[in-house]
């Protein structure tokens, strides 16, 4: 106080105020360093996974344990070299090469094949299942109902098994077969279509002699 009175211009008091301000620059420098470190050394996205259950290789499996599906409820997808994809609706008959049809990956190709597949009974199993799933998703998104995940999963599995709200339908069975030169991406893409089309019954199988004969007759690059 004494200073204030003696120095009329207040130079000292200005200096006193300056002392309160802390220099933040080193702190910001350090922050920058830490952020750069975290940005470079860590990854943000957690990877996703697909759960896969393969059939057992056990040769002693009884034939009666293997379920038989109706012919028109089956589609076989072939993943060949160079990202090519072919399919056979129904049973694979090597003597008739015209049953093998070519398609493409993605929504306009294999997905629309699955989506528009008509069975002998005139039903669209994939469409029915997908519609039921869309309704379930809508119900899940409805905040007022607050559907827990457990119930959602139970109902989703029911839909995938063909138990719909108004009727019970037979669902599709898809067999995925890949040649040696197909890439892993093709396999994952095929599995992905199963996920999108909510197909519950699918299997990854090896190419057998009938498949080789059929593919060779159509000059498919394996």
């Amino acid at each position, binding site marked *: 106080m004494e200073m204030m009175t003696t120095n009329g211009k207040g130079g000292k008091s200005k200096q006193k105020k300056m002392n309160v301000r802390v220099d933040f620059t080193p702190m910001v420098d350090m922050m920058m360093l830490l952020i750069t470190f975290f940005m470079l050394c860590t990854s943000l*996205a957690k*990877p996703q*996974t697909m759960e896969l259950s*393969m*059939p057992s290789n*056990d040769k002693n499996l009884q034939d009666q344990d293997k379920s038989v599906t109706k012919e028109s409820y089956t589609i076989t997808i072939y993943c060949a070299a160079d990202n090519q994809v072919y399919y056979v609706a129904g049973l694979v008959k090597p003597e008739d090469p015209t049953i093998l049809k070519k398609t493409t990956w993605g929504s306009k190709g294999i997905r629309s094949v699955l989506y528009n597949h008509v069975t002998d009974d005139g039903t669209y199993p994939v469409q029915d299942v997908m519609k039921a799933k869309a309704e379930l998703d809508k119900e899940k998104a409805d905040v007022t109902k607050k559907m827990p995940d457990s119930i959602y999963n139970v109902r989703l599995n029911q839909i995938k098994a063909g138990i719909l709200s108004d009727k019970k339908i037979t669902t599709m069975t898809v067999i995925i077969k*890949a040649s040696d030169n197909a890439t892993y991406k093709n396999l994952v893409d095929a*599995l992905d279509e199963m996920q999108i089309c909510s197909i519950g019954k699918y299997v990854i199988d090896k190419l057998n002699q009938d498949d080789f004969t059929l593919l060779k007759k159509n000059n498919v690059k394996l």
Partner: protein
Amino acid sequence: MTPMSDVMVLLLTFFMLTSTFVKQEPIKVNTPGSVTEIKVPESNVIGVLVGNDGKVFMNMDKTTDVSAALSDVTGQFGISLTPQQQKKFLNDPNWGVPMNDLQSYLSLETVKMPEAIKKYGIPLDSVKGKTGDAAMSEFQIWIKAAKNANADAKIAIKADENTPYKTIKKIMSELQDMNENRYYLITQYKKVED
């Protein structure tokens, strides 16, 4: 300056909380995209890393399990490692050196190891000199040892999108042969295209 440091602190907290550390991988793996939203379990995972040239590496999240699996496998092959070599093995984020080359690999200097491991990979062919049920590949032996070390562990296959299906088929059928029929395929998230 104060608002700037505020933003910095915010960003820093965000990065610290949301990110996970990148594990060093001997080969670069680009996983294919898929629409599934299931996350990889954080613990009890046996990771199988497959490069696009078909090289296979493995990792486990707990060091205790790795050391149990290591002593199991080295015991089967009659290889004895010095404590120093064992320590080097456990410090590696992934393993994938054939048993014949394991000792010479672990004798290398630590700085040379990440470069050296690139040319190896766990062999998928059955071990020479054994037939019948004993004809397991080194990969199968490792999986079995890892399963013995931690019975709850789940297998997660992380393969490059350009891996030929031949390699994947081989791995899958080897896993099937030992009745490991449930596993995860690690993918990247991709939006459903309409």
